[in-house]
């Protein structure tokens, strides 16, 4: 603008000097000063016009005309405030909702990870012959790390909740255990102190940890001198050596990182315990890395194929691995909101089409006065741009609040939510969306409105093209398309809703009412004295909790359904004790009392024994391994089908008892009695002593109500307490949770002040397990309802407009003897045709598109006939209702007035 003003002044001066020189020439030729000036001025012509034309040459013609167009637009909009407000609000809704969803999509799926060259960072898995991706087993990991040619580094890592004390208060925190290459791969360095040094990264080294910036601020008081800070992590005292940069929480929102090398390395090739993280070498593609690592996997398979089912390797970019699960869901939401925008735009189209017909006379006059068609088209474009601008600005404001609401409602399983915000890329998206919408609408309307013949429009007195039958047909088509798109959205929402209902009606195998859960992260207990202590700790906890008023049952497990879930599963074997050699029995006894960590010979023998028995697949199976107490089954109402639950007979040194789930019993011993059978499941906890099946309990859906129950073997916490690292106590009580919590908290603190409990009610856990489903349904449902509202308004608008335009025709019909019902039928017929066309197209579209949401449905087909029929019926009904008012209005036409109309 400033440049423009300067150019303007320049030009003014130039023209003035031109004038002076021309006048001077005339004076030189003898004219009087006054005559000379007048003549020169006349010769120059209209200085203002010259300036304007020149400026146009200078700045490109569009700018001045654009301003003119915009001024004109504002006049037009002020003449039709209602239509303008409706259009702007519709765009606000569409653009706002799209922008809000896009900010989530961008933050979660698109935004680059905050690491150097993030595209080089990959997750690596072993892949079994069934195509299952598995974590690394230590010896395989070592082979991959040492033999690959495609990676700069390969690291093992794992994470889990541990009790961490030593800060201002004990906390249950996510603790990551990471191998040497981990931080070099991410290229993350501590902002304070130092990283892990090679001398920290060997077995038996003095424990050290790094902590998150947040933990350091909040629980270590932001101390500058780390040398005095010690944390008690998993009952191990560790020096804090470094503080990681703010915001760094990988993996799984960790707060504490410890060297993986402090943990023991298992020689088993099928103990898949570690996640893999790598960084591609410069210039190496994902595909090359896959080829390279798969070749190593094949070599391992050739050499050790008997001991491990490993056939190839999977390599995926870290970002994809982090967000793979939520990707389809977010894209579904984006598609849904795009549909909503489409429906909204259709409304604006019809509105503008109607307006254009009202302005036909004016357009014809402008065309007759020499406005070119491009000029008129540009005029419409300016209008839609202005509409989109207002809609976009309001939409971004709406999106800002929408994002806050989304973040508040989002289920916790969506990763990277902290990265979601209305930021520059999101704003660019919104701006781009506005332009696309404006251009699409503008071109459509302009081409329609200026297609007509100027003369006929003038002759017909403004009842030409835009209001004519062709235009009415177009309006009908737009309304039908709107209905079709709405139908797709409604079907999507309907399918999600039905899935939620199905999920809610599933019997999970346990009850959730009146149960308080108490989660504890306990230190590991693999040595015999630790096992005894653990058994006593839990028993004492149960005893004390049971004494609280109103308590009906108290129990516990290391794998609370829907909450902690099963952490261990693997191959078990059914053995017959009489067939075991004395050496084997001796080994079993040693495994019960020895420590694998301190006795590599025992470890080797144990793995040799297990590999031996697993090779005979006739008496092996795959099961979840769960540690539980008898009260757990009673509290959760998991039914006992045969035999007995654990009881006081199953003391620490008594023969080890096991309960099996119904489905395992059926699969392993079809038609036979499982009671008394002996199971070897020592690969789960290092205790090779055989388990005797004492009872069969009902199946439990532990992962989620939507996943079928898995075969499960339960062991007794009194006999196998080593698996109770994560331990959930369940308290069944008639009293209100609030009355029990403070007491329960006190009891835990008295027993072990370093173990901070976290409480919940099982009802809440259950509800939360369906949050993702509710969230999707809520959003898609919301979009569908909004689209339905817009579509109703759309079809109502088209019919009303059509009736208004045909007042004269209706009048003639009635004057010629048509009855009110004839006329009403005429309008309703139009509505029915429109609605049927929309529904037919919509059904086909839904049929094609809902396939993509297969993975989000539960227990229902993507072509669920009930949903389709109900939605189609609903739309037809709604369309007819929307048509009723205009139809009635048509019958109220007074023939005399109608004929005089216009």
């Amino acid at each position, binding site marked *: 603008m400033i440049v423009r003003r300067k150019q303007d002044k*320049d030009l003014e001066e*130039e023209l003035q000097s*031109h004038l002076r020189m*021309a006048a001077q020439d005339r004076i030189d030729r003898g004219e009087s000063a006054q005559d000379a000036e007048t003549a020169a001025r006349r010769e120059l*012509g209209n200085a203002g016009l010259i300036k304007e034309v*020149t400026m146009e040459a200078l700045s490109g013609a569009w700018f001045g005309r654009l301003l003119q167009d915009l001024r004109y637009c504002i006049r037009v909009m002020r003449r039709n405030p209602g239509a303008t407000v409706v259009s702007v609000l519709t765009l606000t809704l569409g653009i706002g909702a799209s922008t809000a969803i896009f900010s989530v999509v961008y933050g979660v799926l698109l935004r680059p990870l905050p690491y150097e060259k993030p595209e080089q960072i990959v997750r690596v898995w072993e892949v079994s012959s069934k195509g299952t991706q598995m974590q690394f087993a230590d010896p395989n990991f070592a082979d991959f790390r040492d033999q690959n040619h495609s990676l700069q580094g390969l690291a093992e890592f794992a994470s889990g909740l541990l009790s961490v004390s030593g800060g201002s208060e004990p906390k249950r925190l996510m603790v990551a255990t990471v191998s040497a290459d981990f931080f070099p791969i991410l290229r993350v360095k501590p902002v304070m102190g130092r990283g892990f040094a090679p001398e920290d990264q060997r077995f038996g080294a003095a424990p050290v940890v790094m902590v998150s910036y947040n933990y350091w601020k909040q629980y270590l008081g932001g101390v500058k001198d780390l040398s005095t800070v010690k944390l008690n992590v998993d009952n191990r005292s560790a020096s804090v050596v470094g503080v990681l940069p703010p915001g760094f929480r990988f993996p799984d929102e960790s707060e504490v990182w410890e060297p993986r090398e402090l943990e023991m390395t298992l020689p088993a090739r099928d103990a898949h315990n570690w996640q893999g993280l790598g960084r591609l070498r410069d210039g190496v593609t994902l595909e090359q890395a896959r080829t390279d690592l798969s070749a190593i996997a094949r070599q391992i398979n050739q050499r050790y194929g008997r001991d491990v089912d490993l056939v190839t390797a999977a390599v995926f970019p870290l970002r994809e691995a982090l967000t793979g699960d939520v990707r389809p869901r977010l894209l579904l939401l984006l598609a849904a909101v795009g549909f909503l925008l489409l429906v909204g735009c259709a409304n604006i189209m019809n509105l503008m089409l109607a307006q254009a017909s009202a302005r036909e006379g004016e357009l014809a006059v402008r065309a007759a006065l020499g406005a070119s068609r491009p000029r008129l088209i540009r005029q419409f474009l300016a209008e839609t741009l202005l509409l989109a601008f207002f809609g976009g600005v309001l939409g971004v404001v709406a999106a800002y609040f929408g994002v806050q609401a989304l973040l508040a409602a989002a289920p916790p399983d969506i990763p990277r939510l902290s990265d979601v915000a209305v930021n520059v890329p999101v704003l660019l998206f919104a701006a781009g969306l506005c332009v696309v919408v404006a251009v699409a609408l503008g071109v459509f309307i302009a081409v329609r409105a200026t297609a007509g013949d100027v003369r006929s429009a003038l002759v017909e007195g403004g009842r030409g093209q835009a209001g004519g039958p062709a235009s009415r047909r177009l309006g009908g088509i737009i309304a039908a398309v709107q209905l079709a798109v709405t139908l797709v959205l409604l079907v999507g929402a309907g399918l999600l809703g039905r899935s939620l209902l199905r999920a809610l009606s599933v019997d999970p195998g346990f009850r959730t009412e009146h149960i308080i859960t108490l989660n504890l992260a306990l230190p590991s207990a693999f040595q015999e004295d630790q096992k005894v202590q653990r058994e006593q700790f839990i028993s004492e906890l149960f005893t004390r909790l049971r004494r609280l008023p109103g308590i009906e049952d108290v129990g516990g497990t290391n794998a609370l359904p829907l909450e902690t879930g099963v952490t261990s599963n693997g191959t078990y074997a059914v053995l017959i004790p009489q067939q075991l050699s004395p050496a084997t029995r001796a080994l079993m006894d040693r495994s019960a009392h020895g420590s694998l960590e301190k006795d590599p010979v025992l470890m080797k023998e144990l793995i040799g024994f297990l590999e031996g028995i697993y090779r005979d697949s006739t008496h092996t199976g795959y099961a979840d391994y769960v540690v539980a107490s008898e009260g757990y089954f009673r509290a959760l109402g998991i039914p006992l089908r045969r035999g007995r639950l654990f009881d006081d007979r199953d003391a620490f040194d008594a023969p080890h008892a096991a309960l099996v789930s119904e489905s395992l019993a059926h699969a392993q011993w079809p038609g036979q009695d499982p009671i008394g059978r002996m199971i070897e499941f020592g690969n789960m906890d290092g205790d090779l002593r055989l388990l005797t099946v004492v009872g069969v309990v009902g199946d439990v859906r532990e992962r989620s109500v939507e996943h079928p129950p898995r075969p499960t073997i339960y062991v007794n916490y009194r006999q196998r307490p080593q698996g109770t690292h994560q331990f959930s106590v369940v308290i069944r009580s008639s009293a209100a949770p609030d009355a029990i919590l403070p007491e329960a908290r006190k009891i835990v603190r008295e027993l072990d002040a370093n173990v901070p409990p976290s409480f919940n009610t099982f009802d809440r856990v259950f509800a939360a397990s369906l949050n993702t489903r509710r969230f999707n349904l809520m959003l898609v449902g919301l979009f569908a309802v909004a689209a339905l509202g817009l579509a109703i308004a759309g079809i109502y608008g088209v019919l009303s407009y059509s009736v208004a335009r045909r007042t004269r025709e209706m009048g003639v019909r009635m004057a010629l003897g048509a009855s009110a019902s004839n006329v009403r039928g005429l309008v309703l017929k139009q509505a029915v045709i429109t609605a049927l066309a929309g529904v037919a197209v919509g059904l086909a579209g839904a049929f094609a598109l809902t396939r993509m949401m297969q993975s989000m449905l539960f227990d229902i087909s993507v072509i669920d006939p009930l949903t389709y029929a109900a939605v189609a019926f609903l739309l037809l009904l709604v369309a007819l209702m929307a048509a009723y008012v205009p139809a009635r209005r048509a019958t109220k036409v007074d023939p005399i007035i109608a004929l005089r109309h216009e």
Partner: protein
Amino acid sequence: MPKTERYQNRIELLQGTLDLLILETLRWGPQHGYGISQAIRLNSGEVLQVDTGSLYPALHRLEKQKWISSDWKVSENKQRVKLYRLTAAGKKQLATERSRWQQLLEAMGGILEPKGKESEA
């Protein structure tokens, strides 16, 4: 409008020739807008009159194309004037336009004064 009479003994400039005339005029040295219009008028024996309404847009357009450049100077009679001069690109453009004009002339000549027999066909 009184202006119309004066147009009668004037030949309308062929479209696109104004640029050529301006460039050609500037070939003889820097000149201001008024000077250019006078030079064109005089050199054409008063036949071609450049309308100021066409001249200034053309000058600015040419400047935008970087074929001519301009700066403010103080003239002999102490007045600030805006002088236009030909740039290197402008010289090249002038050569192109001249040769195109030459082609046009020859083509026109060929049609208006045919030398061959084809004209009878």
